[in-house]
């Protein structure tokens, strides 16, 4: 197995163009597990840890650009105030050691339906910046995932960053696991309520072949919330929102849980996160 170690982004893109079969590795928290369990034998690894640009984040007007190599720990510590939903999700990833190493870019690259970072990116309408020697493109995250562990990433492309609007209002993320830490999601849900724009964003994890939004639930809620009111969300609205979120999922029975439980739990999480996000956004 070849081990390619570019030290600049340009070199990385050139290496990926020359070795499209090379698997990019950042924190290694997914890739190394695959290798160690002998599930994957790529001819080459493309180590991105020396590309400093990937670990930077900064603002561009209304949007934040976060490098694909920023680890979860830094998302929590440095971006918790700006991207609270993503930070909540980051806090549920693995153990402290994993959060020191693992990155959102790696999560996107794996494109697992259970990736913890995906629901908050979906809820916030993030865009993923993909780059190759051919150029740069930005893909809305809800168009990024094409199937279980599949995405629109071309063989010569690398994930450079994601773009996301800082949350001025209520962001929430909640994840079901069968233990209280270090667990892969049975299902998860992210919600963004933007009072200024009067928009609702959702993201569902581990309950469909890819992470998905719940568009009908978003539309219903945006239309049903009394955005000018300081009062609580009417229970009937919360219940219907929960029902629509559950309906947007397409879960299966597997070792982690049943489809019926996932739908049920999503409806509960949707109701609860709505209450918290609405409170938090006031």
């Amino acid at each position, binding site marked *: 197995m070849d081990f390619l170690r570019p030290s600049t982004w340009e070199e990385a893109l050139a290496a990926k163009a020359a070795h499209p079969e090379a698997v990019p590795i950042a924190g290694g928290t997914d890739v190394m*597990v695959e290798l*160690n*369990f*002998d599930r994957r034998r790529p001819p080459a690894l493309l180590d991105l840890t020396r590309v400093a640009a990937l670990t930077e984040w900064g603002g561009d007007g209304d949007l934040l650009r976060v490098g694909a190599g920023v680890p979860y720990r830094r998302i929590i510590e440095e971006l918790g105030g700006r991207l609270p939903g993503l930070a*909540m999700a980051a*806090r*549920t990833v693995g153990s402290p050691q994993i959060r020191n190493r693992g990155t959102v870019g790696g999560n996107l690259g794996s494109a697992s339906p259970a990736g913890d970072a995906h629901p908050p990116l979906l809820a916030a309408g993030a865009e993923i910046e993909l780059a190759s020697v051919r150029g740069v493109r930005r893909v809305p995250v809800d168009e990024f995932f094409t199937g279980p562990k599949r995405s629109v990433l071309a063989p010569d492309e690398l994930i450079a960053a994601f773009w996301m609007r800082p949350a001025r209002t209520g962001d*929430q*993320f*909640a*994840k*079901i*696991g*069968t*233990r*209280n*830490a*270090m*667990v*892969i999601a*049975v299902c998860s849900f992210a919600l963004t309520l933007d009072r200024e724009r009067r928009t609702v964003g959702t993201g569902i994890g581990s309950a469909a072949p890819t992470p998905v939004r719940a568009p009908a639930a978003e539309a219903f809620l945006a239309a049903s919330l009394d955005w000018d009111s300081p009062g609580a969300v009417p229970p009937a609205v919360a219940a219907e929102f929960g029902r629509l979120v559950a309906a947007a999922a397409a879960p299966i029975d597997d*070792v*982690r*849980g*049943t489809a*019926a*439980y996932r739908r*049920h*739990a999503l409806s*509960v*999480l949707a109701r*609860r996160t709505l209450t*918290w996000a609405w409170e938090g956004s006031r």
Partner: protein
Amino acid sequence: MTTVDVSVLDGVGTSPRRPDGTLKVRGEFAFSSDLWHEDMLWGATLRSPYPHAEIRGIDLTAALALPGVYAILTYQDVPGAKRYGLEIADQPVLAMDEVRYQGEPVAIVAADHPETARRAAGHIAVDYLELPPVTDPEEGDLLRRVPVRTGDPHPTADVVVTGEYQVGMQDQAFLGPESGLAVPAEDGGVDLYVATQWLHVDRKQVAACLGLPEEKVRLSLAGVGGAFGAREDLSMQVHASLLALHTRKPVKMVYGREESFYGHVHRHPATLRYEHGATRDGDLVYVRARIVLDGGAYASSSTAVAANAATLGIGPYEVPNVDMVADVYYTNNPPCGAMRGFGAVQACFGYESQMDKLAAALGMSPVELRIRNALTTGSRMPTGQVVEGPAPVASLLARVRSRPAPPPSTPDLRELPGGVSNTTHGEGVVRGVGYAIGIKNVGFSEGFDDYSTARVRLELVGGEPAALVHTAAAEVGQGLVTVQAQIARTELGVERVTVATADTSVGSAGSSSASRQTYVTGGAVRAACQAVRATLLSRVAGATDVVGGKLVNAAGVVVADLAEAIGDEPVEETVEWRHRPTYPIDPKTGQGDAHVQYAFAAHRATVDVDVELGLVKVVEIATAQDVGKAVNPLAVVGQIHGGTAQGLGLALMEEIQIVDGVVRNPSFTDYLIPTILDMPPMSVDVLELADPHSPYGLRGVGEPPTISSTPAIVAAVRAATGKALARVPIRPEHITT
């Protein structure tokens, strides 16, 4: 007259620092997977992908053609016995005409690199004809039936409750995978360095399969990364030895994590059907029980597990009329065998669930009902065996009940069900409290010749008395090395004690299982020290005792220093030590004094359950356990914490999921064990009520905490949810639907 200080630094009853502790915390401890030898080869195992298949042919051509491959062996290359087993030699070293479980070894490879070995294994072409697997134990062949019957066969009672309960397949989940190193010896034998629980029973089986006399198979204990029963059976021992003898090179084998799930036995899944009858006042009148255990493809220790389930299966209660049958069956599921609690765990979930159900039917408190029926000294077990020595069942229950209740949880997410996954801020959270008590036999039962051997040498090193303790007892992380040294210090009055590496150059110590090593090997070390003392005393006229490192006469006057008595002649004694004999049980009635000692622990669990999502946070566990004598108090509490955590795992998350004989979650990604955020603070109440028959009055400690923590937690979740919850582990959907 010289006064003598009888207290010895770091002796029995103290908690000296264990020699492996700092190394393990720093990641510097050498485990069996760290073994290394110049010029060694790496072994790999080809395993059956099917739970049941006929092998019609094996083609090694492509695999042998790989550069770096030194040997590929199949059953035809096994020179001695083709099968082995702890109690029944029914498990093939390598599959012959048939595979009976998914993961059964079919061929083994030695190569100059582990990757090459694994790759070669992948190139072996096995022609399988898949056969339908038997996966329901009640459709399998009966391996052993253990009835226990006493009293009126047709009793009646005022109040009757029935229940059917299920226990899923738990894994020992040790962190150090099966591993070892086999080195061919010049005498045609083999030196095997391995992580195991019982060197001599390994040696006996390995020698038989290699066709060698036992003295040509020499085992040394390598660093053990946890055991919990999973290292009682052989794993890679014969395979590595075969490859080493065949290639004339050292061969190392280390299982990967996924392979490890196929490489050892698991806890028997069980279906338990109970009927309890009681008077209106709450006196138990009868218990009828049928326990069905899934033994999997091979016998392992299933027959003894079934005996435990049967003989301990009504719990620590006085019941005049008992009709119990425990059956264990062969299936094509993974083989099941020893795991901490050994049959008593499954039964306890059944009888304690029943006690709660009976209490509800009677309108009594669950603790009152238990105390009312509690065993005590002089009580008769359903086997007819009289309980001797302290049996503080009622007192243990009363103690955990009287502990202050834990405070309500704060809004800190880490204290709520779901933890930082942020699933509740208090919504849906209901608190529940549950109790349970369990009973376990200590040591090997049913007439087994259960002994240990200790060799103790006392000599002068640099002019100072120093003792060398040598046994074959396996330190599996429980702290046995420390305990052996403590006993030698106390018995000999010397502070400098070295415990030699366990190996087969000394006699058998028996297994590090059944909560027995401090009792039996501790007993052997004490007896060997006493023999050393006797020899010393015979050297000095008038000396009658060794106290605080001095030889004293009958008046307590010092007559010699230890150093003077030892002089140029080291004293060495080897002693084989046995606990009191046990006896077989009658095959039809189960009557007999099968067990040497009973041990008891009680748990109170307090849980917060998110009843809408089915998520559980165990808030606190209070436990009380009688240990007779805490030889090492810190290690005792460590065992109680660890055992309780393992029981928590069974209650809430740990299960090897099997569908049609195929394991669906062979990894720590999906076989979940409790983390520190799942394990609550514990209050541990250690009683020291001396057993008159055991060394220092001690009682085995390791297993009881695992037995009653599971039903206590389930009872607490039932109290919070009102759900019947007849199966462990509880899954969220059991609570929400």
